[in-house]
């Protein structure tokens, strides 16, 4: 489940949002209340990303992480705006289990080594936002998916792993919020080439899309918009995945 946090336009309150094509945002509600609902619905893990990536929103992110870690017994992966090692310590101190690095690692790849060496590779998730280029194939876009980094997805994923990334979170930008389904070709290509768990994200609109992601080899499938619309919730989605014959945790 990918949850994104941002500052509201109306006041200094964090608001949980989902995005479409990394652009249009839809407010979902208070991050803590939503997270409690997702835990009750058996979400395996919560990924919280600060979309603002500003100094003010960082403090808000820290507060949200503290509140969630105190209230929940669900693994928390947090990122958005991490550019220095001491920020990682701040998140872990507040109860994050893993951190997500993206633009900060693109700008300074040694950040991955630093975090991996200090806290272990199990703590480091590298988020890669990808767009397909007709000539160059899948390319990495940084700064919230707004800037071409000049790196190929596969090359960057391999470098990140070599430097100490424990998991890769891949998002096909154009699928974000679309409900069309994950980019399975991208998922398969990465699974075949990397030796760490892949979280596939971007585009889940039906429970079958999760099933397809797992069948393509993803260790996990993340979604935001999917869980915020109609009556979709992680528990129903989980049952559908189980019914498709895949091993997944159910309520006990």
């Amino acid at each position: 489940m990918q949850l994104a946090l941002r500052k509201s336009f109306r006041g200094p309150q964090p608001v949980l949002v989902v995005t479409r094509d990394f652009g249009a945002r839809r407010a979902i509600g208070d991050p803590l209340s939503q997270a409690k609902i997702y835990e009750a619905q058996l979400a395996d893990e919560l990924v919280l990303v600060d979309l603002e990536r500003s100094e003010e929103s960082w403090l808000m992110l820290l507060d949200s992480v503290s509140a969630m870690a105190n209230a929940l017994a669900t693994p928390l992966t947090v990122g958005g705006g991490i550019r220095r090692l001491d920020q990682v310590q701040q998140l872990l101190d507040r109860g994050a289990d893993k951190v997500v690095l993206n633009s900060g690692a693109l700008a300074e790849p040694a950040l991955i080594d630093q975090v991996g060496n200090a806290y272990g590779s199990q703590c480091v998730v590298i988020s890669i936002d990808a767009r397909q280029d007709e000539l160059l194939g899948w390319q990495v876009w940084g700064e919230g998916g707004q800037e071409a980094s000049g790196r190929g997805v596969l090359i960057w994923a391999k470098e990140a792993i070599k430097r100490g990334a424990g998991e890769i979170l891949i998002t096909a930008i154009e699928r974000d919020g679309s409900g069309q389904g994950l980019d399975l070709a991208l998922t398969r290509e990465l699974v075949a080439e990397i030796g760490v768990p892949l979280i596939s994200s971007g585009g889940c609109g039906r429970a079958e899309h999760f099933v397809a992601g797992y069948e393509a080899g993803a260790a996990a499938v993340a979604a935001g918009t999917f869980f915020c619309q109609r009556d979709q919730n992680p528990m129903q989605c989980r049952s559908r995945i189980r019914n498709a014959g895949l091993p997944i945790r159910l309520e006990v």
Partner: protein
Amino acid sequence: MAMVKVMVIDVGLGNIGSVLAAFERLGVSVELLSQPPDDADSFSHVVLPGVGAYSAGMDALISRGWNGWLHNIWAPLHKPLLGICLGMQLLSTQGLEGADIGETVSGLNLIPGEVIRMDPGPGLALPHVGWNDVHFHNSDCPIFRGIVQDGDFYFVHSYAFKPYSAEHIQASSHYGSSFVVAVGDSIRNVWGMQFHPEKSQKLGSRLLLNFLGLKPFSRNG
């Protein structure tokens, strides 16, 4: 029931806050200590959490005097001790993580065994991250009371504890091959969990509650 007061050993080994919060949610009194206290009387339970490398973990415990305190002050009382994740691994005799090639790092040696890198085989990545089934071996184990067999718990690790004696193996999981995920010595009242009960939702809470229900072992009953 005697007052429950939990001591959580905090020597800077990662995500201690979540462990603290998990006990607070259960409504018990809990205190973080980075240095060993002079006496153990005011505490009923000790928890040793941690993530990271074995050698770094032992260095941190030894430099603050926890090794001696656990052996000489706490263990003789037979009061319950729980190691979580790296904290569980440190209960062992020796570990390989962070040691020079061909060498090992000495552990707390409260449950005899060694900690070695997992070898899940082709196609399975390390670290082993995520939810996995936990199969307990002894239905009388007080730690697993009321826990469903093969229930899911949350894991993040690359090394696993291999006890020298099968009697200390309380539960196992499968990732490429079987590995031990819970150890326990009911006489010494020393317990360990490779998974994170504090991150394992309802089942994890129940397990921590079971730990809080453990009493100091006494030969006189």
